[in-house]
């Protein structure tokens, strides 16, 4: 078949949104895009997707691009759709519900809600994220321990399908079991099942008081015992975070939120469990951030709760043996943590660490969240074994029959 020329393509797309040629900055995990379009609203994005479908273009939704390198490299990327203008906040304060456009800066959403004494109980893990980016990557910070990961707080979603058709699921009330909860599969799908146009979240009131209890140790076994003791306690922390930089001691931070008197008493109870505990009145600014620097390889592992510290220790020791100082950080309370392998570590060494992590766990998973294109080129196994892949493939084909949406970015080459 004859392909339309680039200029014809661009003209067809430009009927729906401003389009420009991609620059060197418009890449995803090393895959270069050809064109970038910035639709003015969801209707324009819908029309643009419809046009892209007719032109058989591969499409990659992009918010602020802070996590565009996450996942595997897309097999192709004809068109980046920039969601920045799909913004807007519709806050129903009395109902503790908000609907936000995908391109809305996450920080702006938090600001608006905070002004009303409310919050979306999801920490901003990567600064500069958009609402759509947070949901599409499914990144959930420390507070997921009490409030669940971001997908648990999504109560409704509108998604533009591969052909631009908008479909909504859920609604604007928290309690709702009408129809399939399709937002669940969209959350964390890295834009492979559609373009998220807007999301409705349930909110929480900002608790009046907050206290953080922190303790340090060089012994992972001791920290593991603290975490186990916290589980047996009844203090109900909002978060239990482990931070183990490449060098130096492990630290455990326990976040307590509630009433003034309540958090004071609970902090005392936590301090009694940890050795040498210090109590603080705020969380550090970077506490929800993944460990390491922007060029490090970022891994994520999820294990049963009692396996967190043993797994972290195994990874730490194996890194040290390979000459790579691995930093581990994340929710010890949920068993979901990040690990940063320093940039420049040889690809086969990274792969060995990943395999060791996977082979050593009785249950759970280890995946690569973000890696340098060279590591992808060297064949880094991003996902490991993914049970249920045949069903996922069927879901993908149902949503995106020509596999044009962020193709290859997701597990199993989806």
């Amino acid at each position, binding site marked *: 078949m004859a392909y339309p020329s680039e200029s014809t393509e661009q003209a067809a797309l430009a009927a729906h949104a401003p389009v420009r040629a991609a620059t060197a900055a418009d890449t995803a995990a090393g895959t270069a895009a050809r064109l970038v379009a910035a639709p003015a*609203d*969801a209707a324009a994005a819908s029309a643009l997707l419809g046009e892209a479908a007719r032109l058989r273009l591969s499409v990659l939704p992009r918010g602020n691009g802070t996590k565009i390198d996450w996942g595997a490299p897309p097999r192709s990327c004809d068109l980046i759709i920039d969601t920045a203008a799909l913004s807007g906040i519709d806050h129903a304060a009395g109902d503790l*519900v908000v609907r936000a456009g995908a391109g809305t800066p996450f920080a702006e959403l938090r600001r608006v809600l905070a002004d009303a004494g409310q919050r979306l109980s999801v920490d901003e893990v990567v600064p500069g994220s958009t609402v759509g980016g947070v949901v599409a990557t499914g990144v959930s910070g420390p507070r997921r321990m009490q409030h669940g990961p971001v997908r648990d707080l999504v109560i409704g979603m509108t998604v533009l399908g591969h052909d631009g058709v908008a479909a909504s699921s859920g609604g604007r009330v928290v309690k709702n079991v009408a129809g399939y909860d399709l937002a669940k599969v969209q959350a964390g799908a890295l834009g492979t099942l559609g373009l998220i146009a807007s999301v409705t979240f349930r909110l929480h009131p900002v608790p009046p008081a907050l206290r953080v209890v922190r303790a340090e140790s060089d012994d992972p076994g001791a920290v593991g015992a603290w975490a186990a003791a916290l589980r047996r306690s009844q203090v109900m922390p909002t978060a239990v975070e482990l931070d183990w930089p490449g060098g130096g001691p492990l630290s455990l931070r326990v976040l307590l939120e509630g009433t003034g008197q309540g958090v004071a008493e609970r902090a005392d109870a936590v301090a009694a469990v940890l050795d040498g505990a210090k109590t603080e009145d705020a969380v550090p600014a970077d506490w929800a951030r993944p460990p390491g620097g922007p060029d490090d390889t970022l891994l994520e592992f999820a294990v049963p709760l009692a396996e967190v510290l043993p797994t972290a220790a195994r990874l730490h020791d194996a890194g040290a043996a390979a000459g790579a100082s691995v930093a581990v950080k994340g929710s010890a309370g949920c068993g979901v943590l990040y690990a940063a392998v320093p940039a420049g570590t040889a690809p086969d060494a990274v792969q060995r660490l990943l395999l060791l992590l996977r082979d050593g766990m009785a249950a759970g998973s280890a995946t690569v969240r973000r890696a340098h294109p060279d590591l992808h080129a060297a064949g880094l196994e991003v996902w490991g074994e993914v049970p249920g892949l045949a069903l996922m493939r069927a879901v993908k084909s149902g949503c995106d029959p020509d596999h044009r949406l962020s193709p290859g970015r997701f597990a199993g080459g989806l």
Partner: protein
Amino acid sequence: MSQSDTLHALVPDLRAICGDDGVLTDTAQRRTYESDGITYHAELPGVVVLPTTPEQVAGVVRLCAEHGVPFVPRGSGTGLSAGALPRADGVLIVTSRMRRIIEIDIPNERAVVEPGVFNLDVTRAAAPHGYYYAPDPSSQQVCSVGGNIAENSGGAHCLKYGFTVNHVTGLQIVTPQGELVELGGKAADAPGYDLIGAFIGSEGTLGIATRITVRLLRSPQKVRTLLAAFDGMDAGGRAVSAVIGAGVLPAAIEMMDALAIEAAEAAVACRYPEGAGAVLIVELDGPAAEVDSQFEQVTRLCRDEGAFELRSADDPAERTTIWKGRKSAFAAVGRISPAYIVQDGVVPRTALGEVLGRIAALSAESGIRVANVFHAGDGNLHPLVLFDDAEPGAGDRAEAVSAAILDLCIEAGGSITGEHGVGVDKVCHMPDMFGPDDLAAMDRFRRAFDPQGIANPEKLLPTPRLCGERPGARKGVHPLVASGEAELF
């Protein structure tokens, strides 16, 4: 071969899979399963199987898939949307013989159970260790965890603790093609699409859960329950708004109106304050210091809004007394009315007062009594529409009032079902809440799991046969432009 011949021809194979006593063909035995919690939807199942292992479930489903025979999963049959309504041309797969608690894993805070296990039995098994399973539907003594998976069950305490979907980390399922698939496990965040999240609440249309891994929560240090009596629903509703507005997140906030109270008194003599036009039950749980300070706050707010009597319960026996009236309310209505319909609509909490007022108006206009019992914290209404089934046409009139209540919920921006599910009962209301494109996306999702359309067919999504053709079903692209949804940002 007719459909029933096809089914009969499968019986020897079904016996080979499930054993002779695991296949019921006798009419009287099948009759036991002809309906679930909604008895006015009834159908004699073609065959009933009672498998005891995941492999048997898979074998039965595979056989159904090979022959294009529909199957319907069923747990304890307590559902309230006829989601387990059998098919005369199909196999009813009942999980009640899969009732083992496989593991209580306290260090990892998980339980692994078979689908037929009663919800409350998970908590009973965990309780000696100081743990419990949070989702607590009213039927928890007899409803199955597998049924809870199908319906994404909540319960009175889901205001604070969420629904079944928030408490499951692993599922083994049998797909509609008869394959056993493991999704997730004891760890969170299994890689790939969140199929567990989408499977929960899919009402048996995506397959059957055969093994379930759930989170166990540490029991709260303290639980306190408050009963507040008000002159009328308005004052009670204002108290609910005041509590939520103050930033308190109770484990439960339940409300009953005068008619529901009257019914509960007649049935269980719950001794709620005399003359109450509304009672509010507020339960707080958590660390003792938090509970005590919030309890004072809630008490004050209720008094400010005009509560004329307040009772508090700090031990299990006193709590049971307070909850007795609320928990018995549905059944109790049977004491004051020969028949009734339970609705399950949801409204945004701020619309509660207005919608309750309009329900009262509907009731007054139609002369049909409506008792209100509801989860006030999350706007989930359970209006009980009372009627006398011996009176000709009364059922239809009650049905009309019931449907009008759902319309009010949708108009207010709510949902047609908060926890009972769509099933058969509300399937024709789905187009009132979702557009053709929304339903088409859901249908594509269903077909990804079930290309043959044999898993609990004609439930959850409307079909022309059931609900008639809807005008304006759109095929093609550009719906946003067409429907002017640009404001959706």
